[in-house]
């Protein structure tokens, strides 16, 4: 899937993460992370973002993430919302389990 419009989800509040998605030409997903807990959880946060993007099916995207100590469940939710907005899809399977 490709990005049709730049989109974002989340806030800069403590405990949240702001996810911004833009399009990219090559078939790749790039993640740029700024985090208040980068030293301790940076790798894990990037892995969580990648896995959430992959799960959504997005293949061409640059993701800018500004994290203020969000938990994995929050990160996944913000990524999913941003992906939907960026791709213009609106169907979300509420019955599906993560």
């Amino acid at each position: 899937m490709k990005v049709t419009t730049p989109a974002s989800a989340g806030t800069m509040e403590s405990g949240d993460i702001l996810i911004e998605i833009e399009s990219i030409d090559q078939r790749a997903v790039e993640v740029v992370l700024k985090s208040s807990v980068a030293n301790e959880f940076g790798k894990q946060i990037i892995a969580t973002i990648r896995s959430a993007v992959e799960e959504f099916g997005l293949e061409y995207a640059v993701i800018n993430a500004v994290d203020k100590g969000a938990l994995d469940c929050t990160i996944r939710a913000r990524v999913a919302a941003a992906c939907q907005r960026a791709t213009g899809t609106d169907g979300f399977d509420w019955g599906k389990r993560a």
Partner: protein
Amino acid sequence: MTRDQDFYAALTHLSKTAYVPGENKRLYDKDISPLKNRMARENKIVESLEKAVELSGLRNGMTISFHHHFRDGDHIVNMVMDTLARMGFRDLRLAPSSLSDVHAPLIQHIKNGVISHIETSGCRGALAKAVSQGLMDEPMVFRSHGGRAAAIEEDEIHIDVAFLGASSCDPFGNANGYSREGEEKSMCGSLGYARVDAQYADNVIVLTDNIVGYPNVPFGISQRLVDYIVCVDDVGDASKIMTGATRFSTNPHDLMIAETTSNVIVHSGYFYDGFSLQTGSGGASLAVTRFLREAMLEKNIHASFALGGITGAMVKLLEEGLVRRLLDVQSFDLDAAQSLKNNRFHQQIDANYYANPYRRGAAVNQLDVVVLSALEVDTSFNVNVLTGSDGVIRGAVGGHPDTAAGAALSVVVCPLMRGRMPSVRERVNTIVTPGDTVDVLVTDQGIAVNPKRPEVKERLEKAHLKVTSIEELAYRAERITGKPDLLPFGDKIVGVCTYRDGSVLDLIRNIT
């Protein structure tokens, strides 16, 4: 008796000398001028800070001290250090009772060699970050309030010159953290930490923005201990020294922890008519006072005294008669400072009285219960209040280890996680209070009791409080947050965290 030959013969026999008027130059000459003239003429006020420094005999390499009662509004430390730098001093050793955000300008003085060593209770902001990154050649030494008082008393820290800010001072040196006359420019309440410096420093310079009439009693610092007085424009920024009253948290996490903590105290076996307590100023530990008040009213229980950093919430209990006396080493808000000034049962105490680990009679040893906050707690109940989860210095030892060791029951409170950071974990970054002095941990997700205190655990379980093991709490936190990666510490030792007796508890390494 007449001064005949027998008189002098007797004195020789007694190895004594006779009094001769004017002979002993150490005695003051009788001054017949009225007090109002003497106040203007013969007093300890010198015209400038430079002059006072000159008179004190300060030299390179000496130790100087400050107090932190003006907190983040303090102007004294930066003003004095700028002056000393201008005067060309080098290699000075600083022993302030604590440092805060406002002291970032010290970075330049360290770089320029004006300051070579610092001993303090805490450090925050840009200075703390720079120190964590390896700014200083010698590691910063951290001491508790009781540990500092003891080190000064035992001459491990020898203060050559103390620079002590005061909200009011009379011409002969009686100084206070409030003012009974004139305009109230700044107010900090108790001068508890400064009193130790005043007592043991070779030279004491009081800096004030409010000279008041003699005698400025009751005094925080006695005229007997003061050498010079310097009048300055302002000792601090009043709005940052004090808030009106420390506000109660409305954070539901804090309130939940506070309510549980109050229940823990009530059922701990230490809640009886005449018990004693101390609570900190952090969100949850402050709110404990409010919940405990309801329990005290309900069960008609009074506290004999409350100790420590005093807040408006404690003052309210004193005024309601629920607490009989306040012992105040540091006033946390304006309500506390006002009460110290006006209520004779609100007693100012110094850091030795508060928490000296050696002297019998330190008030911490008369505590039944202390409630303390924490940045991190590990599964051995060790507590960190000094370095953040990122390994950077950002707090203060304060009275944490003193009160934990002194109180019959020490209760540490903190949320299980802060954002993604687990507060309860396998190992804390820096041990500030050793786990064998910590009895109960209260989090928003359960209570853990130190296995050393099975009787307390039993009492809490009997009261149907949710007691679990500390390992279980740590596991629960990590399951939600994930396991943090190791921090990028370097090899350089930037901080030494000492226990109350000066022995080393932990080392802080630079963060790259």
